[in-house]
């Protein structure tokens, strides 16, 4: 079936082909008919001419016998003259027994006589419409002379021409009439097909309920009925599929929601455990208590890492991983990334060296958090699987591809046997099942890293030999960025915090909007221990009212709360400030929702920073001290 609007060649339609075939057959039959008529007429006319000749010659012979015997050539001449007046005779000439021309009528006397035609073919006579006949004048066996006679064929040829012309005209007329009739018949016969084509095109265009085509008892009617049935079935199937798709999407959404909920629900108690442990560690403890709490904190950190990996893997599986494209400082990122890892390495007596070479842009555009996650994972693995020796972390800009960077992590660890190297990037896989028992871990780290590198548009690879160490390297595209005016590390606080200008001299006025009691207690303890004043609001609405009552130097805003969530409360605070011409209070989001889309929502609502739960005590303290430093810096100017 051709598409609507597509140019149709003249012979593409069945109707045109049928018409052409029928006209061709009829043309052939008519040609045969006319040519056969001509052939029959030719045969008949030839017979007529020959019969005429056979009738005339004996009469002429009889009429000329006596005068020829008498040598009465004047009489012979008069006989010829009279005979010539008959229709169908062109000339008559008589020769005597000595072949001397004795009488002639209709043939010039000074011209030689023509040779008699051996055969008689009317087709060959068309240019010379005379049939030459020669017959002896015999009587009682005595040859008295020879009669030459020309049979005039002009009227026969004219009749033949007329038959040919009229036959051709009639045939052409019949052909045209047949073509018209066949065209009308074709239109009548194929009207169902046209209807069917229209309905099929409608279905193709997306209309699952086209007007039903005509049905009937004949083949085309049955085809129409079958099409209508098919159309109904397609519609039902499509509806079923749409319904199934919606159900699947709903299930997926439920899964995503569950994932988000789980993420929040797990991080929140973890936040409590780790925060409270930090709080206890800040109190006077004996050595045994401090060691035991250190184990609690280390276990909590490991558990958080495991939970994070599982959540990351779940997000990857659900296709929920979102990448950022923001500007960052590569040197700073590497420094901050490696600093805690160096501490871990040193506890195992290992050293981490760096190797960066070539022309490097400090400021790049990409997803710094995911890059950090991959590097942390690879270096963490290197530390984990190396008992002695050196770990090298290197990075460079590929010389032939200025926007592609290569990172590598080499160690002098246990190495990976060649047969296991292929599967190390697969989920839940470690080089050896005993590895998990020996070194711990979920086995998801390399899978997550590999997937993130691929999502960033890069490739990850491995070179390793057993007991000789391993080298993991990956390349990712990173565009060059412009220089930024950033604080020491604002990856957690990407937006500058404004100063309200009326901070309390000895401490900050902090509004904590948080519904969870453990988080409330943890945050209040950390903030107050740092010498600041906390006003607690149980939900967004209370937070708004508190902000309307008095200005704060810093607001920590939870995202998910009853009555009014953090985003809505922030928008309401910003609206209030704008309506009163008040300076904007710095509002920092505090949530277990770690997705980039969540950060975007926070920024859109008017928040200035983002603190991911479970936050660490020093992160919170650093934030508070940054804010205090800004306020102090703003005071002299004010």
């Amino acid at each position, binding site marked *: 079936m051709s598409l609507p609007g597509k140019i149709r060649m003249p012979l593409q339609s069945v109707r045109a082909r049928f018409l052409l075939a029928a006209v061709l057959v009829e043309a052939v039959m008519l040609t045969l008919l006319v040519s056969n008529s001509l052939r029959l007429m030719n045969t008949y006319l030839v017979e007529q001419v020959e019969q005429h000749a056979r009738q005339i010659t004996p009469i002429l012979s009889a009429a000329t*016998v*006596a*005068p020829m*015997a*008498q*040598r*009465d050539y004047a*009489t012979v001449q008069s006989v010829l003259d009279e005979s010539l007046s008959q229709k169908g005779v062109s000339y008559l000439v008589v020769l005597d*027994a*000595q*072949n*001397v*021309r004795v009488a002639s009528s209709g043939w010039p006397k*000074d011209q*030689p006589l023509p040779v008699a035609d051996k055969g008689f073919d009317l087709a060959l006579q068309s240019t010379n419409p005379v049939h030459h006949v020669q017959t002896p004048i015999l*009587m*009682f*066996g*005595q040859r*008295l002379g020879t009669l030459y006679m020309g049979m005039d064929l002009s009227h026969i040829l004219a009749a033949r021409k007329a038959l040919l012309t009229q036959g051709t005209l009639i045939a052409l007329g019949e052909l045209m009439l047949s073509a018209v009739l066949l065209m009308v018949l074709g239109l009548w016969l194929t009207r169902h097909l046209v209807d069917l084509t229209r309905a099929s095109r409608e279905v193709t265009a997306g209309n699952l309920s086209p007007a039903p085509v005509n049905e009937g008892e004949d083949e085309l009617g049955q085809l129409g009925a079958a099409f209508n049935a098919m159309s109904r079935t397609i519609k039902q199937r499509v509806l079923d599929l749409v319904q199934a798709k919606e159900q699947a999407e709903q299930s997926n959404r439920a899964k995503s929601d569950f994932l988000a909920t789980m993420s929040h629900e797990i991080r929140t108690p973890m936040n409590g455990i780790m925060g409270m442990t930090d709080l206890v560690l800040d109190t006077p403890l004996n050595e045994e208590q401090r060691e035991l709490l250190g184990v609690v904190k280390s276990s909590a950190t490991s558990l958080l890492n495991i939970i994070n990996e599982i959540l990351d893997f779940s997000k990857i599986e659900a296709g929920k991983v979102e990448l950022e494209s923001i500007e960052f400082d590569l040197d700073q990122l590497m420094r901050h990334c490696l600093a805690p890892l160096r501490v871990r390495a040193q506890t195992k007596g290992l050293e981490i060296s760096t190797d960066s070479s070539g022309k490097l842009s400090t400021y790049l555009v990409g997803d710094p958090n995911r890059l950090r996650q991959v590097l942390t994972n690879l270096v963490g693995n290197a530390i984990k699987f190396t008992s002695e020796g050196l770990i090298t972390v290197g990075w460079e800009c590929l010389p032939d591809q200025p926007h592609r960077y290569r990172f590598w992590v080499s160690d002098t660890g246990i190495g990976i046997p060649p047969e296991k190297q292929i599967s190390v990037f697969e989920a839940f896989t470690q080089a050896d099942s005993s590895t998990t028992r020996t070194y711990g871990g979920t086995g998801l780290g390399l899978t997550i890293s590999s997937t993130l590198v691929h999502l960033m548009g890069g490739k990850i690879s491995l070179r390793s030999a057993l007991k000789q160490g391993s080298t993991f390297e990956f390349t990712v595209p990173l565009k060059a960025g412009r220089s930024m005016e950033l604080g020491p590390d604002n990856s957690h606080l990407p937006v500058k915090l404004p100063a309200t200008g009326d901070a309390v001299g000895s401490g900050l006025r902090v509004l904590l909007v948080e519904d969870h009691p453990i988080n409330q207690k943890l945050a209040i303890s950390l903030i107050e221990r740092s010498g600041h004043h906390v006003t607690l609001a149980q939900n967004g609405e209370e937070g708004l009212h508190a902000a309307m009552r008095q200005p704060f130097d810093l607001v920590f805003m939870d995202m998910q709360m009853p009555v009014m969530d953090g985003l809505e409360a922030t928008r309401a605070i910003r609206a209030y400030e704008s309506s009163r011409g008040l300076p904007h209070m710095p509002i920092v989001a505090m949530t277990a929702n770690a997705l980039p889309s969540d950060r975007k929502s926070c920024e859109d609502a008017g928040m200035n920073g983002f603190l991911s739960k479970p936050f660490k005590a020093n992160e919170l303290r650093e934030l508070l001290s940054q804010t205090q430093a800004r306020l102090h810096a703003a005071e002299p100017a004010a």
Partner: protein
Amino acid sequence: MQIVLAYRRLLLTAVLCLGTTLAVAQTPPTFRLGIAPHTSARVILEMYQPLRAQLEKALGVPVEVVTAPDFTEFARRMLHQEYDIAVTTGHQARLAQTDGEYLPLTTYAAEFRAVALVAGTSKFKSAKDLTGKPVLGLSPTSLVTLWGQHWMKQNGNPDTLRYVSASDSVARLVLSGEAVAGFTSLANYQSLSRELQAQMRFLVISEPLAGRVYMLNKRQAAHKDQIDATLTAFAGSIEGKAYFEKYKLEGYRKLKPKELEAMEPYAKEVRASLQ
């Protein structure tokens, strides 16, 4: 321009004539047997075919039987030496002998008589009865016509005859009433159908006259004996006997002494009419 055209026409005619001459020269010499038109040409052709075949076989050359529209024309052609053998009535044979140097060969044994035919129902009994009425002859120079003219004149009827071309026509014209009488030969009368004969009667029958005589052209004189022998052989052959029987000619006989000379008076009239 006209001169050029005339020259061309002359040249063309000359070429055509040359072509015709060559055509004639290429045809074998033909022995021409001329028969006086005593009856219709068709009858004459049929009648002399057996003899023609005999002569052709004997002489080894094509032989054609020819005649003439009438006796006068026959006599004229005969005297122009157009026939190798001329078979004609006695008085023309005499003319051929004297004026054309033909050699007498033979004649038919049957008597030749001229007759005057009238319708059987008519009341004419003498020449005078015919005075002022149409009377038919063959041609002015035929023997029966000349004899009839003489007979009418001697019997007091000065009328001139009317001429028809064939003797069988004479009988029919008399019976149809277009003429009251007609002269023909007795042999011709006998060749008519019995039905026709029954409807007619003789007004007069002549004394025996010299009948048809075979005269040989002098250019064939060298072959005279061969031709004589051929005629004799023909007379003795089955075909010849059938021929004589059919036409009641009773065979050939030699000419009697002075038989041709006796025809001189009639020959004189032919000679005069030819002049």
